[in-house]
């Protein structure tokens, strides 16, 4: 088993190299098995290291598929279809580690059969021999759709902290990827001062992108695995002081989304300088579209997850649609909130929408966004076509500029910036921070900013060259080797 130490030089890569373009971000990267009716995965536990954004290196235990030689944090996202017979074989390669011990996996929400290995408190466990003869196979039927988690079922307080946990997504029957995302065909005609559930008239597109049923359709989906880390526990495990690791109260000083602390969260999936942290969480959409927010809380603390830009409508909890009529697919028991608690061991799904509805001024630039249907005077039902921003903004010497500010308050536009400012917003999009609102968690140990924080980008319909800007389809996939 190879241990690597992460080069800090990689982190010196300037944020200018973020490469905030479409392709690398969109969707939920994960593993699928293309075999109809079944899904088989081999997962191996290894020790390794991750990098926190303040430059520190943390010893971890993690899972990986045969595609990777290094463990990853969080565990591989597994994407299966409703009705699949799921089979996951766990091999424990913690041999050689000072605190090597048995490990196992549990899948809350499913009726699991475990074979092989040795009996444990919660399920059958794999001994740390790195020998297939000691592997455990967990099988279950993915009998309901939703967002779920899986994690260690052995010495769980320590092993979960060490990194043995990830997300499991079950696609509903009838799910079909779209080739093209929805763009509303007309602006809402409703009174913008009245809240409406679904103000958009969508053009039906091909495909059937739903999380549960017809009431949970989406254009893009993203996964947010919320975790917190107390590095002292990790150090005790590394040196083999398991009693010390267990007896600690635990006090997190790192807070992460998809295994990365901000601002590493902004980087694309699979960047080479974060080899054990493959999942980014930068989120993209266009006005009027729907983003499915799949949230999995694998940390030990509650985290109030705040979506700047608009409220999030929660439609499911723990893989259960919030519906008064079972089978209807309509989340009529859902609720809307601007800050939703990520509760340890819980998952929730929310649908996020954003438009310039009711903003009181026209965010679309006359010159650059002219071909956009929404921009047309006849479509501006709120009478704001061509309406300029109602206040004058301060002059350049009066301001501090954010790197994601294009220099213009208008969508898809750019404006003057002082030398050295801006540069991270390639399309003139609107950026919104999504983060833990216990603001203490926006730091990496004693360094601000960072922590449990990522960004949503509302992209314009046209890029700076006047070409249609397309955010790639909802998911990208890596095939498993088996």
């Amino acid at each position, binding site marked *: 088993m190879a241990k690597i130490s992460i080069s800090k030089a990689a982190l010196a890569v300037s944020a200018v190299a973020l490469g905030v373009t479409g392709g690398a971000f969109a969707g939920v990267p994960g593993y699928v098995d293309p075999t109809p009716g079944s899904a088989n995965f081999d997962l191996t536990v290894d020790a390794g290291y991750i990098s926190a954004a303040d430059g520190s290196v943390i010893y971890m235990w993690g899972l990986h598929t045969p595609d990777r030689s290094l463990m990853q944090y969080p565990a591989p996202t597994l994407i299966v279809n409703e009705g699949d017979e799921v089979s996951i074989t766990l091999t424990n390669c913690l041999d050689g580690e000072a605190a090597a011990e048995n490990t196992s996996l549990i899948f809350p929400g499913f009726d699991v059969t475990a074979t092989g290995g040795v009996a444990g408190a919660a399920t059958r466990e794999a001994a740390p021999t790195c020998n297939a003869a000691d592997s455990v196979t967990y099988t279950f039927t993915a009998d309901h759709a939703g967002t779920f988690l899986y994690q260690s079922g052995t010495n769980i307080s320590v092993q979960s902290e060490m990194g043995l946990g990830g997300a499991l997504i079950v696609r509903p029957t009838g799910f079909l990827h779209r080739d093209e995302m929805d763009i509303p065909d007309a602006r809402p005609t409703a009174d913008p001062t009245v*809240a409406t559930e679904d103000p958009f008239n969508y053009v039906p597109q091909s495909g059937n992108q739903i999380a549960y049923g017809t009431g949970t359709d989406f254009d893009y989906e993203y996964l947010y695995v919320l975790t917190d880390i107390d590095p002292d526990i990790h150090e005790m495990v590394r040196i083999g002081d398991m009693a010390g690791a267990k007896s600690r109260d635990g006090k997190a000083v790192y807070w992460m989304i998809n295994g990365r602390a901000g601002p590493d969260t902004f980087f694309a999936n699979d960047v080479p300088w974060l080899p054990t942290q493959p999942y980014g969480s930068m989120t993209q959409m266009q006005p009027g579209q729907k983003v499915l927010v799949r949230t999995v809380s694998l940390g030990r603390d509650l985290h109030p997850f705040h979506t700047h830009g*608009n409220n999030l409508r929660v439609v499911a909890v723990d893989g259960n649609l919030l519906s008064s009529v079972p089978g209807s697919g309509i989340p009529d028991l859902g609720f809307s909130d*601007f800050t*939703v608690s990520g509760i340890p061991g819980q998952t929730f799904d929310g649908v996020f929408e954003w*438009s310039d509805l009711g903003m009181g*001024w026209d965010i679309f630039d006359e010159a650059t966004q002219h071909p956009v249907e929404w921009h047309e005077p006849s479509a501006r039902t709120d009478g704001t076509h061509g309406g300029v921003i109602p206040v*004058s903004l301060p*002059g350049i010497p009066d*301001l501090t500029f954010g790197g994601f500010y294009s220099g213009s308050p208008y969508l898809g536009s750019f404006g003057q910036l002082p030398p050295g400012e801006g540069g991270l917003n390639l399309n003139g999009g609107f950026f919104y921070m999504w983060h833990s609102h216990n603001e203490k968690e926006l730091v990496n140990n004693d360094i*601000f900013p960072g922590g449990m924080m990522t960004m949503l980008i509302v992209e314009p319909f046209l890029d700076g060259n006047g070409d249609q800007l397309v955010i790639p389809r909802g998911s990208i996939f890596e095939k498993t080797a088996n």
Partner: protein
Amino acid sequence: MNMIREREKGSKMTSRRVLLSSAALAVCTWVGSGMTASAGEFYQQCPGPVNAEGEVLDGVGGQVIRMDGTTTSIDLPAASVCYHIVGGDGFIRMADGTPLYSFGFSPLADGQNPGTRALKSNLPAPLIRAVQGQKVYLTMSNVPFIIRPDLFDPHSVHWHGFPNASAVFDGVPDNSISPNPLSSMTYFYNVARPGTFMYHCHVEAAEHMQMGMVGNLYVEPAQDFLPDGADLNGFTHNTGDRYAYNDGDGSTYFDIEIPLQINSYDGAFHKAHYNVQPLPFAEMEDTYPMFNGRGYPDTIRTDVFLNANPDFPGTTGTGLETFAQPLSSLISAAPGDKVLLRISSLSTVDYYTLVSPDLKMQVVGQGSEQRVGPDLGAGSPSKAYYNTHQLTLGGGQSYDVIIDIPDNASGDIFFLYTSNLNQLANDQQDYGGMMTEIHVQ
């Protein structure tokens, strides 16, 4: 490929811009030497004229809206409302008598030089109220820190929960612009939805929010201004009746309301700041749990606290005193009253659970949205209100709660406090912290 926007800014301006001072001149005098005068100037943008008493006179409706941070009365919805707040520093008194160095916002009367508000920050920030359908012009002027002249922090205003926010007015420094010291910026909001929100500075959020740049903000529903006698599905609206949301049936009617914001301070963090020490982010642990910027028993005092800090002689007895903690959390009600609590949390560290052990709390809204459920055949969503004695809030969460004061409760006192009982303290002083009282007349 970068296209510089050519649109003439002044051509369709709906607001007028009033220069309030040559700020560099005025404030540099206060701070003393060492401050490089920038091109900055303080100004306020507002679509209409303002009167001489610190009240904003709306340009369209001519309605007066008070903005003194303590009481506000709105008779009719004006088309626009203007606020001017100042970001800076000051001292906030904890209930055990300890003054803690703070950052914060303070209110500004119209025409006043923001420099006069230096070292006069408030906790919580000035209460901001608006009516659904109004346009809000919120000017924030940044006066330099007096105690920390080594810092040149910009500030911003984040209207937390504003639906369909634009990026430029969202206040996140990474994604927009933030006014530097000696500068002003006017934020514009077209207020489309009612509800209980909150606002805070988002610059260096972990630090500036822990230091106190947090405040109450809520929007009243348009339903408040129905014509007298209007029928609301069997409920008769009378002029002056008020509601939490556009409920359509009077089910969120209330007699009195009080914003109740959870704030909390880490004494060690504030002292480290005052002493120009490295800031202990990872060790941040709040030791002063508060409602509306005060710990019990100060929460039930109805007077305004002056900013008078013995550690900084310049603020005591020199005519520089100003109110710093304007908002009482005492709930004074009559038997039979319906009391709307607009509960929000801008704690930066912990979740808190509030309990009302004697009186039921009916939760009618959360996260600025009325709680609604399935359409049960009436053609509109049903109500999903629920009764509880406890609510748990993390930072950035809000609830709208209605408490019915019993008819036979005259003279009674009810308590509202955190059931995280270790938080019923003002640092080392017990019997304090996050607690307030409901006094029934």
